[in-house]
């Protein structure tokens, strides 16, 4: 059995290496016609850009993606520099008409995005010519290897039960060198995905056929991400099913996040796109879905007929009515650990790292400051955006609409949610984003704390302060601090994953929805002691 595990690990690593290495493959050169097509498609007016592109890219030479990217970016720089100089020149000459004319030639698109769009057309070579083979060598080997590594646990873990043996002895799960290596890999992955998609254009070729089947178009880097996300969640869900096979709550919850990721986040939007509808994730609620009220999205939706309007109404109702109502009845867990995509990844890929969340009082204070600030900023951003949308103004209460949207998308959307949120799993735990950054979690948390039937009930005086609950709380809640006082856990950040209850060796914790009366019950003296003493002290 152990041998199978090691073989699986080797196969997985081979698949991962081939997947990572594939970005170095292929030739990227263009024809004059391809360049011209792109230029006219994009409505680019700069002749210099087109000339520079043709000079370097229309060639018989072997150019790899990095040289290609650098050539495109250089062409862009040359072009923009030229027109900047022209602008400066006419400015000095006070020739305003000529100066104004120059601006149309400037290109504002992000360099790596232009490079990506060109590369998508320009690529040739092994990957593009052997798509099916490449799929099996990357995704295929990765999936098979990971499953071979995971499945033997059915026998190796012994009889069903909590088996966290050795978590703090292993480099991968105890912040050792493997964990740091994984962190670096994930961070680099997200940096490439968000900021240098042209470098990973080969990955998109591998998924072009699947993308074409689903939505009728070629795969973008976001399709790659979505597909990879689903694959990783499925494989790691298998791990969850085995690890928690004695615990039906965990099994149901894992199935639920898996379903919502694959069907709602992945399949439905792709199929909608193939039907010429706006691709929409019906479960993604504002303000996690921070650009829902951005001008381009409202415009897109209002121009998409009945379905667009439906989405606009649904998205609004989801945030204002459905989300808080569900939190009242079930706690924020219905979203964060049963439905949400970020939560879904955290609960599958992130499960081996859940013990790394910081439980100190300091980090709780920090958490409250940061997460509520993000909520506030996202609301301010939306108000500014909507005001500008309806009035046509460029700014509101002194905040430039474009600036705040760009800053939020960059800092919160890309860096916080992606690079830090997932990249830091192996060292800082699997819910960094959900705990410190997610504005929706902050909103749900406020409802959960003040108006909900959900709580984690503490079972009388049974706690032995062992600390398993706190250690394995992914949200950094010091669960034990409540349990050892016989007090129910009512915390805004709790996502209701149920693992504290699962790892408790004394049956002390139970997640439940119940009457709001007596939900918060601080105790000084616990059940089991003299009843008169309990009355005396607890009723003070």
């Amino acid at each position: 059995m152990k041998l199978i595990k090691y073989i699986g690990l080797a196969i997985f690593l081979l698949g991962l290496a081939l997947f990572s290495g594939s970005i170095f493959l292929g030739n990227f050169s263009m024809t004059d016609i391809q360049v011209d097509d792109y230029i006219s498609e994009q409505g680019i007016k700069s002749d210099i850009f087109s000339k520079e592109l043709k000079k370097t890219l229309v060639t018989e030479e072997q150019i790899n993606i990095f040289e290609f990217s650098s050539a495109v970016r250089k062409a862009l720089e040359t072009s923009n520099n030229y027109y900047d100089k022209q602008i400066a020149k006419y400015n000095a000459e006070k020739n305003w008409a000529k100066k104004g004319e120059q601006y149309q030639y400037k290109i504002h698109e992000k360099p790596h995005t232009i490079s990506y769009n060109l590369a998508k057309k320009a690529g040739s070579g092994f990957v593009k010519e052997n798509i099916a083979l490449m799929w099996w060598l990357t995704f295929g080997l990765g999936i098979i290897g990971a499953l071979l590594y995971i499945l033997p646990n059915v026998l190796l873990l012994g009889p069903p039960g909590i088996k966290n043996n050795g978590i703090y002895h292993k480099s991968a799960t105890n912040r050792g060198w493997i964990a740091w290596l994984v962190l670096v890999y994930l961070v680099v992955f997200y940096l490439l995905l968000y900021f240098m998609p042209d470098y990973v254009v080969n990955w998109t070729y591998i998924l072009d056929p699947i993308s074409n089947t689903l939505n009728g178009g070629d795969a973008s880097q976001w399709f790659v991400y979505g597909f990879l996300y689903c694959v990783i969640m499925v494989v790691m869900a298998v791990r969850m099913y085995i690890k928690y096979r004695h615990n039906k709550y965990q099994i149901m919850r894992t199935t639920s996040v898996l379903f919502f990721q694959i069907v709602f986040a992945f399949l439905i939007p792709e199929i909608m796109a193939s039907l010429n509808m706006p691709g929409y994730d019906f479960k993604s609620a504002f303000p996690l879905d921070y650009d829902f009220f951005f001008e381009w999205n409202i415009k897109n939706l209002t121009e998409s007929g009945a379905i667009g309007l439906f989405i606009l109404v649904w998205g609004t109702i989801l945030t204002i009515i459905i989300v808080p109502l569900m939190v009242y009845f079930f706690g924020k867990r219905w979203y964060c650990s049963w439905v949400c995509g970020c939560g879904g990844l955290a609960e599958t890929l992130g499960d081996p790292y859940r013990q790394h969340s910081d439980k100190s009082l300091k980090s709780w204070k920090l958490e409250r400051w940061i997460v509520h600030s993000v909520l506030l900023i996202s609301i301010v951003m939306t108000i500014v955006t909507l005001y500008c949308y309806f009035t046509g103004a460029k700014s509101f209460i002194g905040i430039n609409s474009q600036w705040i949207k760009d800053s939020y998308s960059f800092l919160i959307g890309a860096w916080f949610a992606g690079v830090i949120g997932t990249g830091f799993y192996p060292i800082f735990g699997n819910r960094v984003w959900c705990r410190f950054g997610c504005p929706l979690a902050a909103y749900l948390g406020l409802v959960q704390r003040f108006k909900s039937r959900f709580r984690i009930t503490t079972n009388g005086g049974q706690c032995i302060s062992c600390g398993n609950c706190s250690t394995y709380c992914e949200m950094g809640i010091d669960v034990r601090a409540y349990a050892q006082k016989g007090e129910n856990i009512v915390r805004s950040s709790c996502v209701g994953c149920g693992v504290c209850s699962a790892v408790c060796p004394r049956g002390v914790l139970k997640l439940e929805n119940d009457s709001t009366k007596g939900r918060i019950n601080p105790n000084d003296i616990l059940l089991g002691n003299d009843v008169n003493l309990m009355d005396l002290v607890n009723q003070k």
Partner: protein
Amino acid sequence: MEHIAIIGNGISGVTLARHIRKFSDKKITLISAESDYFFSRTALMYVYMGHMKFEHTQPYENWFWKKNNIELKKGFVNEIDTDNKVLHFEEGDQISYDKLVIATGSKPNKFGWPGENLKGVQGLYSKQDLEHLEIYAPNNKVCKRAVIVGGGLIGIELAEMLNSRNIPVTFLVRESSFWNSVLPEGESQMLNRHIKNHHIDLRLSTNLKEIISDDKGKVKSIIIEETGEEIPCDFVGLTAGVTPNISFLEESNIETNKGVLVNRFLETNINDIYAIGDCAEQREAIGNRRPIEAVWYTGRMMGETLAQTICGNPTEYKPGHWFNSAKFIDIEYQTYGWVHGKKGRPEYETHFHWKHDDDTKCITIAYHKDTKEFLGINTFGIRMRHEVFDKWLTEKWTIDTVLKHLQAANFDPEFYKLHEKDIIKKYNQDTNSNIKLSKKHWRKLFA
């Protein structure tokens, strides 16, 4: 300002200190030779198994003590001058006190076995025991086999720990079935099978004769009393119960028996000296309880109680209904009220027993054979609500009503399969009754 010195920073001493702080601004000194900060002794096993790091066993952050003005003193008290109210430390220093509380807990039992003090022979109680375990049984190369002597709660925990590092374990149990002095037969038998399912070499009705040393003073093997069999091993765990850790009081005039003798106010024979927790021995047992209760919860309750007395509200130690819990490898156990095994079962106590087909869940309900009064429940593999049983015991429900409303007591996670129907069916068969399950919510029973 009155100075309260507490010897021992376990659950009893710490609970006491916290509660004194709640009600007063007396000077408090918590003394320990074992660790700098309070940690949960019951969690040491999880550190060895790699579920947690040692710091995770500390329920309070390190700044907590200073913030609450509780002074921590590391040192070993070797003499108490009760006349002058002064503590003398092994390290040479001394402090004086106004009131002294002895909360020094337990130490593993040793029954004079030959070789019981060899290297690689130890109990599992203190932080130091854990450190020694890491030396003598870090993995199955250094420790090719371990022998555990004594089939109680610590014994099975130690077996689970060693098992987690793939160290082969031979488990010597004096009784004819695991822990059957406390547990009824059905439960005890189920645990025998569970232990064996984990590939632990369980030897019932087996006693240790002696422990053999190698030429370096380390354990080499053990010999079994009954058969004379010699089992080679690198580690011996002595887990045949614990005894109060009070040998440092031998020279003092504090009255002791096995433990420090106290009255219901937890006072010793000397004024202003108290004892709580594992090391305290009641002069007269309280109800069905033993005079010495070496249990986490009772230690905590004594701390809660004594704080009242020390803060000017003299309060007797009057624990409520008995409860306890444990985990036997994968099987959780809870008990509420009294369910007796072989030892000390009153003649009126009758049992109803139900076991699930999967052999990992069962319950035993004890009731009065004439009045049918519910006396207590043992539950294995099914979590139950403390609050509900406490109420049922107080209100003296009959077993019929308890069973009828059993679902209200269920504390398993949501979506778990419920077994109350099965349980009631078995009871109806056993007793020719016709009870029907009520699905009333537990809160409604409290209204």
